[in-house]
């Protein structure tokens, strides 16, 4: 088991490195470089050259990458070109916010969607199953920006229940001091996720309901409720958990829109602005964080599966790439 975890960690590092290489190469495909955008229309050619020199852009790409890696090893993610702050600070400030947002909405999605999926599976083919499916699909099909706007109009303006923006302020404490202000962003973030998760859970539960062990449990006189929650539920969960790990980038993608709609300065928006301003250090920093989060998510999902499922716990060494 330790070997298994070790191997997974090693692979994770490989993937993260690959991500930095890919990002680095892609960044340098962008035309022109960041100088003009950062320095503005009024910058002179000398200023631009000086900027490029100080940022190391006049070096060959492999050298630049190597320097980047060296700095990374020292925990130095570089300085934002446009924000006058080092990337570590920026991430340190915004990452917790995004985590709060995404974690809450994912948690909400899980809490709502998984039981919903089970319930739909049990009532398969019934009116409520169809209704659930319909709602799930409509939620899934509604672009996040549209959903956000609808939520604001409905629950902030027509019915002034919640503020239209998240609590401002630099610290998590300030943010959390007004939990009401998180309601709409969290709902907007959870919409599509609820839909997707409930579908997965429904399918997984349906599969498990036809398993032989369910028949065995019935044959020994186990009440249906017990069968559902103590037998089927953990089994269906294993397959859904595997998928959750890879959902990190998707959730992150949605958070960009939510952040921009609800005035929630998080990593998603940081990333988007950095991408448009070619603020390489920030971009690389965020991509790195997301890559680590994704890999960690997958790893976590594997570990959770390892905990739920005794078969993997022992076999362990299996490679499921």
């Amino acid at each position, binding site marked *: 088991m330790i070997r298994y975890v070790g191997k997974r960690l090693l692979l994770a590092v490989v993937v993260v490195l*690959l991500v930095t290489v890919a990002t680095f190469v892609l960044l340098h495909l962008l035309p022109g470089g960041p100088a003009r955008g950062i320095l503005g229309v009024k910058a002179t050619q000398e200023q631009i050259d000086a900027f490029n020199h100080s940022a190391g852009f006049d070096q060959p790409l492999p050298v630049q990458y190597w320097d980047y890696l060296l700095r990374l090893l020292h925990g130095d993610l570089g300085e934002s070109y446009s924000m006058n702050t080092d990337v570590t600070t920026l991430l340190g400030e915004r990452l917790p916010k995004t985590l709060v947002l995404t974690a809450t909405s994912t948690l909400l999605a899980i809490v709502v969607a998984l039981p919903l999926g089970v319930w739909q599976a049990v009532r398969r083919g019934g009116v409520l199953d169809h209704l659930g499916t319909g709602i799930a699909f409509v939620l899934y099909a509604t672009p996040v920006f549209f959903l956000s706007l609808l939520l604001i109009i409905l629950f902030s303006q027509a019915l002034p229940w919640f503020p239209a923006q998240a609590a401002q302020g630099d610290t998590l404490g300030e943010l959390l001091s007004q939990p009401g202000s998180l309601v709409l962003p969290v709902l907007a973030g959870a919409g599509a996720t609820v839909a997707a998760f409930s579908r997965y859970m429904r399918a997984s539960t349906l*599969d498990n309901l036809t398993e032989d062990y369910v028949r065995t449990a019935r044959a020994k006189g186990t009440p249906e409720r017990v069968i559902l929650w103590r037998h089927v539920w953990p089994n269906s969960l294993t397959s859904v958990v595997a998928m959750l790990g890879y959902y990190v980038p998707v959730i992150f993608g949605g958070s960009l829109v939510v952040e921009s709609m609800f005035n929630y300065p998080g990593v998603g928006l940081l990333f988007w602005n950095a991408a448009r301003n070619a603020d390489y250090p920030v971009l690389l920093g965020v991509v790195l964080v997301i890559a680590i989060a994704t890999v960690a998510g997958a790893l976590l999902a594997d570990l959770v599966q390892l905990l739920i499922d005794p078969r993997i716990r022992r076999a362990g060494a299996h490679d499921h790439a």
Partner: protein
Amino acid sequence: MTTLDPTISLAPAPERRHRGTLSAFLGHRTAVAGGILLLLVLAFCFLGPLLYGSDQVHTNLQAARLAPGAGHPLGTDDLGYDVLGRLMVAGRTSLIVGVVAGLIATAIGAIWGALAGYAGGWADAVLMRIVDTGVAIPALFLLLVAATLVTPSVWVLAVIIGCVSWLVPARLMRAETVTLKERDYVKAISVLGAGRLRIVFRHLIPNAIGTLMVNLTFQIADAILLVAYVSFLGLGVPPPTTDWGAMLSKGITYTYDGAWWLILPPGIAIVLVVCAINFLGDGLRDAFAVRGRR
């Protein structure tokens, strides 16, 4: 030595898979409804302009932002384009990009996943680490880079989105391949010395077609949403081409003006089509899932 009369041989009744698939699909009412709806939308987008002509090439600022009324059943937008006609041409973009991107993603993913799964060992590890890497890089970033390098025409956008979203089918196909390659028929044919490509293309991919088809529908739906998203971020197709996502994201800035005709038509169109495709996929899944039919 006795041989039983073959007519009384009681081997398990053959599963009637094909016929079963169609009838299972047709029995899935929502799936059929989804299919019909999709056909209607296709007709609307591709045949509609033949019946309902409107200038979707030139702006007409004199007739901008007209509320629905005579001449413009759904009003006009901020550049004077007729919204109903615009909905048709925008739908073409969304649908073409969705379908082409879905096909591309599924094709790349299927081949990649099948090769990885069948090769196993090192090749598998390398190919799948590449997939993991792709998953971990935000698609948005890839889109941004791509959109900066090439001007996104409808087809270019389709290719870009396809190339960004092949990862899921690749994983799916690999998983499928790993189980399929243990099937005896694959073993039997590889014992004979059939080449890898033959096995991948003649045996593995065709047998995963059910999974791939289902995934394809979801890919299409996702691609349509992704187009909307990309347009919202301003990376979409250049004007005067447009798509539902662009119409919607532009329209919602007029929300407070009460210009519902700029918001609801594209919004509903997206939701409707994505739902229809999902229902279709759901039906297909049930139709292909032999197990679920028991």
